[in-house]
């Protein structure tokens, strides 16, 4: 029997960076890309199971696609208690969205400061090469100094969309295995 782990994955970042596009592309296995913008009002929950390689285990990701618009923040925040893993998204064509990353991270960390949780920084819309203003180096540096894993993706081109989700699921699973080793020493 496979072991099913459950992780709450909150997806955060400024409005229009592509959080809903990424989660919907991932959730639909690449069959659905929301071309027209529909703003997320509050939080949308999507669930997707990820199989962990070289094991019988699977991680069910409870993905909380959160609104980036400031007016929803008060509602959104209420859904953020006890996150297991975090996905922070910005748009490589928007300097503002990159500058906001520190703020979003701070907001997430203020939820549960004593618990360590795996996180990724996702640079989206890399298909818009001509309009790109945030370099890979700037993204990597920010990720590194904040303990996040860095990914470049395009929801539109369905490029690398699964990678950050898989990474988070695998990190969560790894953490579980590590904790089990600790638990075995307790008695």
């Amino acid at each position, binding site marked *: 029997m496979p*072991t*099913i782990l*459950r*992780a709450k994955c909150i997806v955060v970042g400024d409005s229009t960076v592509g959080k809903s596009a990424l989660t919907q592309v991932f959730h639909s296995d690449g069959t659905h890309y929301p071309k027209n913008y529909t703003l997320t009002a509050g939080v949308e929950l999507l669930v997707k199971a990820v199989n962990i390689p070289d094991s019988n285990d699977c991680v069910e990701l409870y993905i909380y696609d959160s609104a980036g618009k400031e007016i929803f923040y008060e509602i959104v925040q209420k859904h953020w208690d006890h996150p297991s893993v975090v996905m922070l998204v910005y748009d490589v064509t928007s300097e503002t969205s990159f500058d906001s990353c520190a703020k979003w991270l701070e907001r997430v960390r203020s939820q549960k400061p004593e618990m360590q*949780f795996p996180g990724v920084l996702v640079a989206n819309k890399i298909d818009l090469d001509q309009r790109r203003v945030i370099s890979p180096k700037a993204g990597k540096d920010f990720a590194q100094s904040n303990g996040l894993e860095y990914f470049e993706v395009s929801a539109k081109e369905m490029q690398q969309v699964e990678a950050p989700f898989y990474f988070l699921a695998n990190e969560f699973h790894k953490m579980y295995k590590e*904790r089990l080793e600790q*638990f075995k020493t307790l008695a």
Partner: protein
Amino acid sequence: MFDVASSKAGAQVVLATSADEEYPPENIIDGSQDTFWVTTGLYPQEFVITFQALMNINTVRIQSFNVRKITVGRSVSNEPTEFELLREKDVESTDGQLQEEEIHCGGNLTAQHLKFTIQSGYDHFATIHQVHVDGNAVHS
């Protein structure tokens, strides 16, 4: 008075919200502190112990790790339904050793089932190593 929650006494864990077959919920009542049940992510997490018969409960002792808040409910019906909250406990965090909580019920409290709900934890994963319930069967 003896441990009415042990599998030797005919008790069973009839429900648990996490299942890793290497760490099954039966470990909670197997009489050994070495084995445990582990939660596999998110809270709340729950398990229900059903006794062999209706019991008078004196003390409930819980050995755990990473549990922050736990509630205990009892039911006197045949089926594990209609639970009534008995106690809510904030558990201190421990480092490298098991948490121990005791709940005194006075001895005239009856239960057919006890439901334990881990409301929150100090980490993503928590364990229950052992639940011990001092009590005896209600003679009618």
